[in-house]
């Protein structure tokens, strides 16, 4: 049995039982109602991220339903134009900021990365809790505002001057801008945690060239987040300042410039697309590997492809602005760059196909979702070449052709892999398998429904239907196509319901999974399902890219960490040789309180410029309390200190 050496023991010795009990005492999450807010373990926070992001996905999906109903008939009056504008903005903003990034990046990084690199928690666990609460509060604020008829209504990009002080009355765009602030703070925090976890907390032996591709994907995304999000930090801040403090960034009358917003926004907005689907491709690599029963073909190519995509993503933000009129030379550069991005993506596709073609393919539900991903995502990539070519883009830009394109890319590149991932990691999360029958049913419904909904959008776009219109004249030849799309939505709706029902039912009565139901190779399968609060009884060591598959018959495990504290092992960045020991902070209520204080400051600043300045005081207080050291553990640590020899 392969898993014996790194995998978790089925039979424990007495010594190990004692050890397990001890670890359990130390790592347990605090109990009770207050305890809920103190929790800091990455599996707990990761689960919360997952369910919150899923909730927002469903909300945005329902909003999409409202839009499809409105557009099913020309000149329909089911929604007023005011409501429709709010709804499509809420749909876009939710999907991008409250579902896609938190789900594909935060959730997967927080829950899986520490398990996959074989450590006991994510780096900076308290920051992790803080980031979750901020994200949750931000989303909550956004939707409460929506219920109060204050839903953002200027599009998920909120271009100025339309969203600016002169043309966006009320507080709607301000709530949008602050939503951005909330979500970007949480994404940035998780990015830092992920990078540090992967660079310093890997299991001994997991050198750079042995890091699972999935983890590589999350690292690339983390770096992209760090360099991309500041763009939207600035643009949304400028927007807020213009609206509340009368700054003049976007006022052409006094040297302001409306394109400045677009440049900053798309500096973030384009990498955004990639940081949504790179985790998707990372998931695909993982599932393809497991279900082709072989090491992935072209590990290096796949990793480099993701890195290259990450770099290139910053070189083509302007291709969202071709219609604003760009100098010929810049135009050529951005066209070339936009087309070249197809090379790394193509390389990945070919490698996956090669992996399957040379392996033993086991057609279980996760792989079905991946195959669906191929059909949909590749189509999205192809239409991407249309929009990359400036002249063609000038025709299809801001039409339903583009709507079709990015739904093929994002639903293909993120949601299909996501549903695959849910089926794949569900056993790890709950200890039970999902129903294969229901899983395949929901896949086929979703696959058909998706194409029925979004393929006609290409055609209706080429027939001249622009985006973001709340209705259209009857005589344009758009009606039937729109009605087909609306019918497709029903299939998608059913499929998601079935998926949810499947999760719900399987969590209770699914077949018991055991530690490694898929007989997979990465470390998260080397512990019980669900993992204990200390992740691994023995911290594992690694001997190959697929830690479990490549383990030697007697793979060593790590010993010598203090077991009366939440201590962990740090390893060197390149070769993952043991480097030092450190201690995670204990659970604490302060991150939660700090998040509350921060939220109050953010929301306050929507209504008065003083919001931030005054709001900063409670934030500072809670943060100081958060970092204030406790005496007793300090004494313990000091008694055992071993200093780094310079």
């Amino acid at each position, binding site marked *: 049995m392969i898993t014996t050496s790194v995998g978790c023991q089925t039979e424990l010795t007495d010594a190990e039982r004692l050890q397990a009990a001890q670890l359990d005492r130390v790592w347990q999450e605090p109990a009770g*109602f207050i305890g*809920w*807010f103190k929790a800091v373990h990455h599996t707990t926070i990761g689960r919360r991220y997952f369910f*919150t992001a899923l909730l927002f996905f469903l909300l945005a999906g329902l909003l999409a339903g409202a839009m499809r109903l409105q557009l099913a008939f020309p000149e329909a009056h089911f929604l*007023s*134009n*005011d409501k429709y504008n709010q709804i499509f903005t809420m749909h876009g903003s939710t999907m991008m900021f409250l579902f896609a990034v938190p789900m594909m990046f935060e959730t997967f990084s927080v829950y899986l990365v520490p398990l996959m690199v074989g450590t006991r928690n994510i780096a900076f666990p308290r920051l992790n809790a803080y980031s979750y*609460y901020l994200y*949750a*509060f931000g989303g*909550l*604020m956004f939707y*409460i*505002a929506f*219920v*109060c*008829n*204050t839903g953002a209504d200027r599009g998920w990009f909120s271009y100025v*001057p339309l969203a*600016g*002080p*002169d*043309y966006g*009355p*009320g*507080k*709607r765009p301000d709530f949008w801008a602050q939503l951005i602030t909330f979500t970007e703070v949480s994404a940035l925090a998780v990015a830092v945690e992920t990078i540090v976890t992967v660079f310093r907390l890997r299991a001994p032996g997991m050198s750079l060239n042995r890091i699972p591709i999935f983890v590589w994907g999350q690292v690339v995304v983390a770096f992209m987040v760090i360099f991309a999000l500041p763009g939207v930090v600035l643009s949304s801040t400028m927007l807020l300042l*213009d*609206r*509340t403090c*009368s700054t*003049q960034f*976007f*006022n*052409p*009358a*006094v040297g302001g410039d409306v394109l400045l917003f677009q440049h900053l926004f798309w500096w973030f907005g384009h990498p955004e697309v990639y940081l949504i689907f790179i985790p998707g491709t990372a998931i695909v690599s993982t599932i393809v590997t497991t279900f082709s029963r072989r090491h992935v073909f072209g590990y290096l190519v796949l990793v480099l492809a993701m890195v290259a995509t990450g770099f290139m993503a910053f070189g083509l933000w302007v291709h969202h602005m071709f219609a604003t009129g760009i100098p010929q030379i810049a135009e050529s550069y951005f066209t070339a760059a936009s087309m070249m991005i197809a090379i790394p993506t193509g390389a990945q596709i070919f490698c996956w196909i090669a992996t399957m073609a040379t392996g033993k393919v086991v057609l279980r539900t996760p792989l079905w979702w991946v195959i669906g991903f191929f059909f949909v995502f590749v189509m999205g990539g192809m239409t991407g070449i249309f929009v990359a070519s400036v002249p063609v883009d000038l025709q299809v830009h801001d039409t339903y052709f583009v709507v079709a394109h990015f739904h093929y890319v994002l639903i293909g590149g993120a949601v299909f892999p996501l549903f695959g991932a849910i089926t794949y990691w569900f056993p790890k999360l709950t200890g039970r398998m999902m129903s294969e029958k229901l899983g395949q049913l929901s896949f086929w419904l979703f696959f058909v429904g998706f194409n029925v909904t979004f393929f006609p959008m290409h055609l209706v776009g080429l027939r001249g239907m622009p985006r973001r219109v709340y209705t259209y004249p009857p005589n344009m030849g758009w009606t039937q196509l729109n009605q087909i799309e609306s019918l497709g939505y029903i299939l998608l709706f059913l499929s998601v319901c079935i998926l949810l029902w499947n999760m719900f039912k399987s969590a209770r009565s699914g077949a018991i999974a055991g530690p490694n139901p898929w007989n997979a190779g990465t470390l998260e399968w080397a512990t019980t399902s669900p993992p204990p609060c200390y992740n691994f009884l023995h911290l594992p060591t690694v001997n190959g890219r697929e830690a479990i598959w490549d383990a030697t018959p007697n793979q060593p495990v790590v010993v010598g960490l203090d077991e009366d504290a939440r201590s962990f092992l740090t390893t060197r960045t390149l070769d993952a040789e043991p480097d030092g020991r450190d201690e995670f902070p204990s659970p604490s209520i302060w991150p*939660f309180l700090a998040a*509350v204080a921060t*939220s*109050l400051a953010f*929301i306050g600043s929507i*209504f*008065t410029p*003083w919001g931030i300045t005054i709001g900063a005081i409670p934030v500072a207080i809670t943060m100081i309390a958060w970092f204030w050291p406790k005496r007793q553990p300090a004494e313990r640590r000091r008694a055992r200190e071993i200093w780094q020899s310079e």
Partner: protein
Amino acid sequence: MRAAIPILVLSAALALNGCKREQRVFDPGSSGSQVANGVPLNEVHAGGPVSLSDASKYEGSAYAVGEGKRLYEAYNCVGCHAHGGGAIGPALMDSQWIYGSRPEQIYSDIVQGRPNGMPSYAGKIPDYQVWELVAYVRSMSGQLPSDVAPSRSDEMPVKKAEQAQPKEHPADENPQPVQQGRPQ
């Protein structure tokens, strides 16, 4: 999501004037589109056909005040009153009110016109637009909550944004319903 309680509380407060502030009535219906008639309104029967609730409906809605701001340009009030500083006509952003600072008084100023230059707009501007103008004019001297009053405009900044305008205190000031529930 128990974690949300504090936010819920806060946003409940926000909700109260939130919904009102974001009200956008596009089709005012027949009553609103009545052309403003010249019915005199004065101290004797303040309001008369128009009630204060009318005024507060517009002074509570950021959209209505924004429309008022646009109409102030479109109907060329700016031609005489400039951006509130006054020129040919009196200033509107100070505490001096020749004919009173209450909404219904300003309403009748616009509808009936006033000696020495202020023309009567009776029969020209629909009723609801007069009220939008009234709301905006009052925002110029900071009579409106700052979360309703307009932000800066995309023009040469010649004065503070209405939302940053300190509240002037006209001699005849008496509490207006809309002035309760200021956010700060």
